[in-house]
């Protein structure tokens, strides 16, 4: 679409509308939430119509420039800035839907922090999924990070509290707590998540989200933000060919930074979030 526009000199209002129709389709195809698309296109139209034509750009280039600028603004800053506590341990609580990639990410983050010279400790607080504890233990061994596992009779908040206590004596300066997958609409499980949070006072609550998620991602992000509070987002399975529009929806609805991405199944496939790369990926 940009190729066709680039050849033009002056853009008519019809040209702007046609370009915006194509932007809208591209964003919907990329799984950006339809309400976010509506707002985005309206903002771009407003700027395209109202803006002074710059001498150095053709009007077509100007629309392209506006779209990219608005995307960048929405995407936020480069990721990977974790709030480290001045009084260790820093406590990081992971949450998200079933199958989003939390357990794998917990180990990836631990490995990443270890490579940065920190002393992480993993906590297997998913007591519901069969062999979830084992999964984290195997992953923990693979990255060389110890895992605090549940004792008989414990609830998730007890295991988490144990891990924080254990960190002080190890010593470990970061505790990463894995939790069971849950729907933001599950009242009982969201209450459980809040109980875990209130017991360990995390410095960071990270929402782990699948990059292949569709429109539902907006409601999920809002639900977790309202239900437990979200400080940052992790986008997994970015090694897929999904466009990842859910990233834009989440940014628009909860205005929290995307801190990391999961880029593969191996435990070293973790990277800081790059907003410009994500923006181009979504725009296709």
């Amino acid at each position, binding site marked *: 679409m940009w190729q066709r526009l680039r050849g033009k000199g002056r853009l008519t209002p019809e040209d702007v509308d046609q370009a915006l129709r194509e932007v809208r389709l591209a964003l919907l195809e*990329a799984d950006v939430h339809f309400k976010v698309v509506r707002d985005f296109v309206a903002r771009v139209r407003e700027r395209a119509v109202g803006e002074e034509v710059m001498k150095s750009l053709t009007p077509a280039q100007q629309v392209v420039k506006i779209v990219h600028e608005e995307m960048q603004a929405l995407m936020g800053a480069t990721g990977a800035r974790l709030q480290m506590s001045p009084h260790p341990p820093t406590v990081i609580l992971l949450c998200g839907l*079933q*199958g989003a990639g939390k357990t794998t990410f917990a180990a990836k983050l631990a490995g990443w922090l270890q490579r940065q010279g920190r002393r992480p400790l993993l906590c297997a607080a998913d007591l519901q999924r069969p062999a979830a504890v084992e999964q984290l233990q195997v992953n923990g061994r693979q990255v060389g990070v110890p895992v605090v596992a549940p004792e008989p009779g414990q609830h998730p908040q007890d295991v988490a509290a144990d891990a924080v206590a254990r960190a002080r004596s190890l010593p470990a300066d970061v505790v990463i707590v894995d939790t069971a997958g849950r729907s*933001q609409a599950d009242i009982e499980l969201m209450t459980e998540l809040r109980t875990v949070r209130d017991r360990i006072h995390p410095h960071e609550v990270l929402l782990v989200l699948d990059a*292949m998620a569709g429109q539902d991602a907006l409601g999920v992000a809002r639900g977790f933000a309202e239900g437990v509070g979200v400080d940052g987002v992790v986008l997994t399975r970015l090694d897929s060919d999904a466009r990842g529009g859910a990233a834009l929806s989440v940014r628009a609805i909860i205005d929290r930074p995307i801190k990391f991405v999961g880029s593969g199944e191996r435990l070293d496939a973790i990277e800081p979030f790059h907003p410009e790369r994500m923006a181009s990926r979504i725009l296709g």
Partner: protein
Amino acid sequence: VGGRRALDAETIEELEGVLLGADMGAAETERLIGVLREAAATERLAPEEVPERLRELVAGDLRGAARPLRRAASGPTVVMMVGVNGSGKTTTAAKLAHLLRSEGATTLLAAADTFRAAAAEQLGVWAGRAGVDLVRHTAGGDPSAVIFDAVTAAQARGLDSVICDTAGRLHNKANLMAELQKMVRVAGRACPGAPHEVLLVLDASTGQNGLVQACVFTEAVRVTGLVLTKLDTTARGGIVLAVHRALALPILYVGVGEGLADLRPFDADAFATAVLG
């Protein structure tokens, strides 16, 4: 022009929201709204009749999709669960084993995910709960070998079926798709006609990439049907319409929870009502 008021701009915008928000996609949304507009004009639909007509359209599109699990003409029915990471294959394999057992069929589970941490252990817990045997090898082994052993075991024991779990894999990873192709071939070698079912397990919250997944998996390993999981969450599963339209894939089951009994046969009417919220 009285009855032609059924689809005013406000109604269209509202319908777009419902359809797009359910992951139907822009093309399918446009098509359905076009059909509704036509119906409203020619049949003078009252505004209050529009939601039911839309529900009917969606249900109608999917009514042919439901079908029961195939049964092999002789020997065990071999079922393989395939799909991208985290979609619900392992849990669905267990649910299916439980369902078959509750229908009086004999079955066993095959832990052919030899890659992911504690995958066999996870299926092992489920096998125990479902009261079925599990065939597994040590972690890191050849997944095709597990398939071969499980199918031959099912044959030797005269079981009705064998349900093979496989590792999650992204369809854009050629080596992983090649591995899956090999597993399918090996199943066929162990038992002619196998696998009788290759079920693509699709997470209902998947966006437009779900269509790409379905196309690539079907191209690679001749998917015979779909299972749509996590419909008990806020995920609507609307992507299944585009998948069914593009590939005419049957939809056998829907997953509606994390428990052993949380698997239901696909029902077009129930789905249409739910997907339109």
